[in-house]
């Protein structure tokens, strides 16, 4: 006797179809799993056995062999429990499991000893993969029904207990109400830009960064508002497009987040502490399972590294590849996984460990070599990938409390939206949507410049690299988009150089 059910094994965001076969032979009662299960999956033996009994069904006599095929793919996680339980139950005629629906249904869920079906990690990528593989129906934990229904192209049935699974298969599904999602209402609102008083240049740089998704470097002594500014960036970013929202939600679901409030529609904001390990930043993890890191959780959103130089240099260097490619490939002995990582980088740094180096009226207490060491940690290659370098000067005069209230995030956001629209229109024929994604070759050939002499001068002086030139052009286009112009003028070009080079641009 044998029986088959279907499940999905995740490798990163990719899912492989897994056939769960169960068969029995007469010998001393025993349960054997074959097909590269990991420790968590091997423990399913006991969970599933008790779950089946709790559902009032019989666990088959003799040796129960459960085969997870293809045998060469590593399987991890607890979501196989349901598929294993149903396959094992189907082997025994007495359980009267209805089989016709099993062939195009995937089963996801972790079983409790009492037969309850518990939520699993990565339900959204699991369902996306199932739908890609052509499954019509999926059985998911009832607690995750709200999330599961966000995935298009597949019918989902929620179950709270193993016996409900059998009812679903028999065509008598138990209905579970989906708790009404209340997006954004419960989430703490992102702080507003109107809190930032004075500092007009910084506010403008932030707006440009938001409009073109440019990488931003904030440099200045402690207390000038670097963190304050960065934390307000999400409030002026446009919401995610529906396809982006699914993509971002899938990554966060894989990381184990519960998405009860619906899809993630706001650009995510990740601000890992500077003690974060390289694995937590780039992705990785033990036990054969590779989880997305902060760079992937910040996909289509913002990765904010406060106190940039405090991150290990190796950690920072590991950002170079994702910055360039928009994805990370994580290799382990047995598998290779690729996660998307198209994030907007915001780096903040003090001038030196004590924070007073080069600040008027203050004395730096660091020995010169420490200052140098500190600044060297942000290597040339990393800084070369930043589009906008913002020097934030120490606050030299107290802002008048009675002064005009600065623009709120909503006002700035409307301008950003307009600029994004302009970019999308110009790049409609291309695979890109924002200025930051446009490769240099396209910039130079398709989007001509009025006068390139300032750039040539900076190149000749060694203030700009070739990559730097591309960055200046991208920022210049964003400035034109914000100003509502159809072409880049010399004003935009000079301003972009100023943003890109910080103070060094004046000399050029």
């Amino acid at each position, binding site marked *: 006797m044998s029986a088959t059910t279907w499940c999905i094994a995740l490798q990163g965001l990719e899912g492989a179809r897994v056939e769960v076969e169960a068969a029995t032979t007469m010998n*001393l009662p025993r349960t054997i799993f074959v097909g590269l299960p990991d420790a968590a999956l091997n423990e399913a033996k006991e969970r599933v056995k008790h779950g089946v009994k709790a559902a009032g069904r019989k666990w088959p006599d003799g040796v129960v062999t459960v085969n997870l095929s293809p045998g060469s793919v590593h399987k991890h996680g607890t979501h196989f429990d349901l598929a294993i339980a149903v396959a094992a139950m189907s082997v025994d005629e007495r359980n009267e499991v209805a089989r016709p629906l099993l062939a195009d249904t995937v089963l996801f869920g972790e079983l409790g000893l009492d037969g309850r079906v518990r939520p699993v990690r990565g339900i959204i990528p699991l369902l996306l993969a199932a739908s890609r593989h052509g499954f019509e129906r999926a059985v998911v934990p009832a607690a995750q029904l709200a999330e599961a229904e966000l995935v298009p192209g597949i019918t989902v049935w929620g179950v709270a207990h193993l016996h409900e699974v059998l009812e679903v298969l028999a065509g008598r599904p138990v209905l579970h109400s989906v708790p009404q999602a209340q997006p954004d209402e419960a989430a703490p609102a992102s702080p507003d830009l109107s809190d930032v008083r004075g500092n007009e240049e910084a506010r403008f740089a932030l707006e440009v960064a938001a409009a073109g998704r440019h990488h931003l470097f904030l440099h200045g002594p402690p207390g000038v508002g670097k963190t304050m500014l960065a934390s307000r960036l999400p409030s002026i970013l446009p919401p995610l497009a529906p396809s982006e929202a699914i993509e971002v939600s899938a990554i966060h679901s894989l990381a184990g987040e519960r998405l009860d409030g619906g899809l993630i529609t706001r650009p995510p904001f990740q601000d890992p502490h500077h003690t974060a390990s390289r694995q937590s930043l780039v992705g990785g993890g033990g036990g054969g399972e590779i989880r997305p890191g902060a760079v992937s959780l910040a996909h289509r959103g913002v990765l904010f590294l406060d106190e940039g130089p405090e991150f290990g240099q190796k950690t920072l260097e590991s950002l170079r590849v994702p910055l360039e490619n928009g994805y990370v490939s994580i290799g382990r002995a047995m598998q290779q996984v690729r996660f998307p990582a198209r994030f907007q980088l915001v780096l903040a740094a003090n001038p030196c460990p004590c924070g007073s180096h080069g600040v008027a009226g203050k004395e730096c207490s660091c020995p010169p070599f420490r200052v140098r060491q500190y600044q060297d940690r942000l290597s040339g290659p990393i800084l070369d990938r930043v589009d906008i370098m913002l020097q934030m000067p120490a606050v030299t005069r107290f802002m008048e409390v009675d002064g005009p209230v600065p623009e709120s995030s909503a006002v700035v956001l409307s301008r950003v939206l307009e600029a994004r629209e302009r970019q999308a229109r110009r790049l409609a024929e291309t695979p890109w949507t924002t200025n930051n994604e446009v490769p240099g070759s396209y910039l130079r050939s398709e989007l001509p410049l009025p006068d390139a002499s300032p750039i040539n001068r900076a190149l000749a002086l060694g203030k700009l690299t070739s990559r730097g030139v591309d960055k200046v052009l991208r920022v210049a286009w964003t400035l034109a988009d914000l100003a509502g112009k159809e072409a880049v003028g010399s004003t935009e070009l000079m301003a972009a150089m100023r943003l890109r080079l910080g103070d060094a641009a004046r000399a050029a």
Partner: protein
Amino acid sequence: MVRQGKVSRALGSHGEQLAAEYLQAQGMEILERNWRCAEGELDIIAYDAPADALVFVEVKTKSGPGFGHPLEAITVAKARRLYRLALLWVDDRRRRARVLRVDGVGVLFGGQVPEITHVRGIAA
């Protein structure tokens, strides 16, 4: 020897009696019951004439289904020990056959009639 209460010992020997009757009904000849030596005990020793096999049977009895399948109580180590005992028995009794086989018989009470499971060749 594990100490057992009166009731459980009675249950065990009743189960063994049922198992022996079952094996006889299957056409086996019971040679000996409850053979003991220093190493342990064999519940039933039978001769399976069609297969020319000496069969050493371990009987497990359960009073109800709440304690799992009776045969679950036979571990791999236990089955191996039974085979060692079988060799000792052969040595002691000087009896020969083409095949030596260890079988498990589970007797499960609780239903209308006791449910008997017979698994052949659990150790070699």
